[in-house]
């Protein structure tokens, strides 16, 4: 039926990944950084699903589920920390958290 080349799936995955990467590195707003992280995780999910589909293995989807739990936990902790940060610094600027410099 379909004949989407794996190559294209991986291209899509890397595109999404790189977009997410840009977001994480370039944004100062921590909330946006978290969202970009989600994008990156998602990109990895695409690659896994694609690979699973090519070789007709369920492992890809299993991995995706694990990534999903990871994302859930990460978002929970991340957002909680963000709330702390907002209380303490009155800002979501990641550059405010640079006390741990050498």
């Amino acid at each position, binding site marked *: 039926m379909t004949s989407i080349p794996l190559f294209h799936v991986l291209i899509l995955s890397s595109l999404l990944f790189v977009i997410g*990467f840009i977001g994480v590195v370039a944004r100062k707003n921590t909330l946006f950084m978290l969202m970009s992280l989600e994008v990156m995780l998602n990109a990895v999910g695409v690659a896994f699903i694609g690979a699973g589909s090519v070789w007709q293995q369920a492992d890809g989807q299993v991995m995706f589920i694990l990534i999903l739990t990871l994302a859930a936990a990460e978002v929970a902790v991340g957002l909680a920390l963000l709330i702390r940060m907002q209380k303490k610094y009155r800002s979501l600027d990641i550059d405010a958290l640079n006390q741990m410099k050498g």
Partner: protein
Amino acid sequence: MNVLLASLPFYPFVSFLLLIFFGKRLSWRLAATISVSSMAISALVSAILLFELSVTKNQVMTANLWHWFELSYAMGSSDVNVRFYLDGLSAVMISVVTGVGFLIHLFAAIYMKSDVNFSRFMAYMNLFIVAMLILVLADNLVLLYLGWEGVGLCSFLLIGFWYQEQSNVLAARKAFIVTRIGDTSMAIGLLLLFNSFGQLNIEAVTLLAEQANSLSAGTNAESADNIYWIALLLLGGAVGKSAQLPLQTWLPDAMAGPTPVSALIHAATMVTAGVYLIARMHGIFLLAPEVMNYVAWLGALTLLLAGIAALAQTDIKRVLAYSTMSQIGYMMLALGAGAWTAGVFHLMTHAFFKALLFLTAGAVIYALHHQQNLFKMGGLLKKLPFESSLFIIGLICLMALPGTSGFFSKEAIIAQLWSSDTAGPMLWWCAILGALLTSIYSCRLFFLGFLGKARFNENVQLKKSSLLRTSLIILALLSLFGGLIPLDLTLVFSSVMNLPLAQLTEPTWLHTVAIITPFIGMVFSWFYFKSYRISHLAGKEHILQPNNGRFVVFCRQGLGFDGLYKKLFIMPYQWLAQINKNDIFDQIIMLNAWYVGLWHDALVLVQNGSLRWYLAAFGLAIMLLLGVSLL
């Protein structure tokens, strides 16, 4: 074991301890009584010892106090004891040390009466006597070295007695360090001596040296070489202590100390320790005739140098200091020529008259409110007739006018120079020239200080103390008649094989020349220094100024040795110390720390705490890794 001999240094030592520990609480009278009476007892004991010595069989007495330590070397070991040894030579020394020492203590007790630190002063003087007695009585060279350093320390303390004055402090430092250079040479000499003979006992070394000589002198090249070096190194020590060339520079500065100190230490006793050392070690020196020749030449050169320098001085004590140097030069000359007895004899008479001169000078200086400048004196003969007459006695002894003690001893030296194997006519002429210089500077000193018109305005102050005068009078009597003391040291130097007489025959005019030389000097001075002695020089007397020509100043500063040493040794040492103040080794080692620190600083820049920066670095690293794997 002779208890009296063993106890000789004990009396002044007890006095020292008492004064040091309870000095602050003692009254002047008590402190003075303690220190002077301890010296009186010592003098008495040495008199008894002298008597006992003359009746003992071989004229040697010993007292073993305790076993000090034992030194071992490749072929065995030898004991070094705290042991006193009294023979003719050390007997002369102890009588000078305790006798003259007693008189000077007596003088000092009154002279220093008003000083706040009187008891400390007397304590040092006592300690000095202890060290000096140990030096002359030592039976081995290590104990001698102990006394040697001890007198150095006391000399240092007494020169710097008025320590608040920076110049005194520096003079004391200079004296100590310069003599220490000599001491180090002596210490190396001791090492070499022990290594060659396995002994440090003076008697034993003398004996061994003689044996070595009688076996086959000169055939054993190595041992001859060793003895040459030993003698030379010991000479180094003697030169330092006795202020001879080239280590003479400390003595004039040492005059910063109180006048009794100059009399006791820097004229009568300590500075002659070098002479004593060479006389004591004559056994070694005789085996090294070259070194004896050096001794003679050093003595002669110092004699002339000090005579010239004395001519240009303006400070009465410095004149006397240079005069001391030159007189010790005579002693060295005598020793170098092998005239041992004459050298020691001159040591004794010199102690008498130089102590007298210094003490009288001290009295004069005190009378003039601590004025030491000769050009601010003048006419003292009328104002201080007693002191002046004693000073004249001292001066005629110094000039060796016939009949005085100086005459006998100096004649004895000069008489033996011409025909000595290690001296010779050349040195004889030096001695004569020295005598001429001596009489000229003595006359100059006398004219400037005692004749002419008074060039000061204050009234003279006098210490009218019969004790003080007694001590001066006794010294004056000793100076005048000390030449009559029969000094028989043949036993001490009996072991000396007579030096082969040179082929020179003495011309007949020798003695005549020697005797009239001082008179020539006097006559010359009478005319040359006319301006100094005339009191009616038509209104010019108040502008009598020292000659400040360049050459005169050069002579006044001891012929530039100070400056030379400063340029040669002191400044380079200070420079070295200064440039390397931070320790170059430390710098090199700390380079490691600096290097690590550099990396630390560089990496700290990377560790900037910014999360995004870390992420970017992470991405960059992945990019680079992938790039590398691609290539």
